[in-house]
């Protein structure tokens, strides 16, 4: 995933601005996709794309801020850069709290915009890697029985087999059997590796 593989989604109802930004971004080697409304973007977007979105705040129909809310709700992992005529402080704070990468004021210099796009694209790469790991770990953890998950939860907290046996009210030997099955199913190399998998897929563990 290099910068030139990234797609920049431009959501702006002003055709001149879409056109000018397209030229600017293509000049830098980005792929560009254009949308003249938030609704069009949402209809066309398929999950987990590498790149970022440049969104105009003031649009007819759904506004930029509303679009960001939907993006968060639908768990779309695309970093957002806002473009606004005059951003108020409240607006900026709200956008940044909702994890916007940047909040830029029109007219924006190429330097500022391209800088933000680069940041957003690397953020996108990071998010996608993390997400892949999470999915992977989740998949591995999904094969465990409920009892095995209990043992895993105890083990990654650093408890000894003896302690685990006492906590779960089972025999020392049973703990050993569960543990070897867990290592087998997750393919973890050692306890440290198991802890990593457990953390990445942490939502599955009680």
């Amino acid at each position, binding site marked *: 995933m290099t910068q030139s593989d990234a797609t920049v989604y431009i959501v702006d109802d002003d055709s001149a601005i879409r056109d*000018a930004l397209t030229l600017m971004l293509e000049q830098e080697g980005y792929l560009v996709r254009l949308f003249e409304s938030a609704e069009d973007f949402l209809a066309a977007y398929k999950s987990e794309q590498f790149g970022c979105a440049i969104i105009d705040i003031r649009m007819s129909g759904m506004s930029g801020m509303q679009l960001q809310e939907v993006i968060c709700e639908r768990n779309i992992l695309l970093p957002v850069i806002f473009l606004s*005529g005059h951003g108020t402080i409240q607006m900026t704070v709200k956008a940044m709290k909702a994890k916007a990468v940047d909040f830029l004021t029109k*007219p924006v210099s190429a330097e500022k915009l391209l800088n933000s796009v680069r940041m957003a694209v690397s953020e996108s790469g990071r998010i996608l890697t993390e997400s892949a790991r999470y999915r992977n770990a989740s998949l591995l953890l999904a094969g465990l029985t409920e009892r095995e998950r209990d043992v895993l939860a105890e083990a990654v907290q650093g408890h000894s087999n003896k302690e685990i046996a006492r906590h779960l009210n089972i025999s020392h030997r049973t703990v050993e059997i569960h543990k070897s099955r867990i290592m087998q199913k997750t393919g973890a190399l050692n306890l440290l590796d198991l802890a990593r998998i457990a953390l990445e897929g942490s939502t599955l563990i009680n």
Partner: protein
Amino acid sequence: MELISGLSFQTLFDVSPDAMLLSDESGLIVLANPAALTLFRYTKEDMCKLKVEALMPVRHREYHKHYRKAYIHKPEARSMSNGRALIALRSDGQELTLDISLTPLKTNEQLCTLAIFYPTDRRRVAEEAYRASEERLKLATKAADLAIFDFDSNRNVLHWDEDMRLLWGAESTDSISNKRFSTVIHPEDRKARQSALDNAIDPKGNGEYNSEYRVINPSDGSEQWVSAVGRMHFEDGHATRLVGVARNITRQKVFEDKLRKQRNENEILFKEQVAAQTISAIAHEINQPLTAISAYSEVALRAMKVGGIYPDNLKRALEGCVHQAQRAGNSLHELLSFLNKSNLVREVFDLNRTVKEALTIAKDDGYGGFYPELQLEKKMPNVIGNKTQVQKVIVNLIRNAVEAMQGIGIDDSKVMITVQTHKSINLAHLLVKDNGPGLDVETQKHIFEPFFTTKPTGIGMGLSISRALIEANGGELWFEPNATKGATFHFTLPFAT
């Protein structure tokens, strides 16, 4: 002695000029003297069949029966009415107002009562009625929270009641000179109050006195609003006496002030919001093409520096710049022509009347602390234009004048409005002149520019809009400093013919 002892009760009874009746315990009339027969217009036979209740109006009879029984238990010689006049009934139904005295007479068989009737003392009754009416008035004024004053305009002295004195800070005299009375009135209100008084004194006027002013209590410095209403009385075409009532309206005034302040604040807020939204819309219209132009130019610039752009794209970027610059220009033109048109409805109207209406609006808006002086050219032809807009401009000029004067604490804020025909050109000419601080050179330069203001809460659109409105109505608006102090704003409007 012989002679005297020979006089019987019967003789005295019959010759008495006062009407007399003798009644028994049951209230039956047993004897009536000729004076009584004359007074009540009965024959002796008829009268001696009656009970005493028959000699009084039906409405008093029942009560009298109880009264009579009580008297028999405790008989004594006394007046029946305790100073009040009583009403008796003549045989023909006529009611008589009388004083009655009662005397118990013990005979062998029973207790009789001698009643003697006297014509009522009219003066006493009149005094009684007057006292009652005074009492009523006092109670009513107290209930209505009214104080009473009586101004003798010949001697320039004011008689006042206790309540009025309290408002003025408890002077204990019954009267006060007008001059002294005025010293307690708030300096800003003295002039208005005096002119209301002068109007009432004017024999050509209707004599009505109506004034609201503040009173500063000399003992504790507290400020109260007073509303005084009265009517002047004239004798031979000269004002003599102004009687009226005064009421403490401080609470009402405080409430009104609060309401007005709130309304003004809301209006300012609203205007600011309208201005903010308009500006924001204009900014958006300009900012969009600027954004595109900026991006296009940077693309072109970079292409020239680094190379590696298709000639088609370079052309596209530069064409984009041109189009977007034109787009910005067009937006501005559209906006300006929208502002200029704005559905101007023209009508024929009387400028003098519009000035009076504008004055009322300005006063209602809480710009009441000034004295308007009108110089209206009578029989001036009607003008043509949008009346509402012209009215707004006049209100705006009055407000500016009043605010300028109040800003430097002039209590004699006089706004002179003149309506005349412009001498050199055939136009209606209106002048609003104040005696405020005037405008310094720097302010004069910018006074008609949008967003220029010298007021802490203004947004600086009033005069620039006013000028635009007058120009849209075919006139001109300008400013001239006064020779002595203050400023005068002028505008012209075309006549309808």
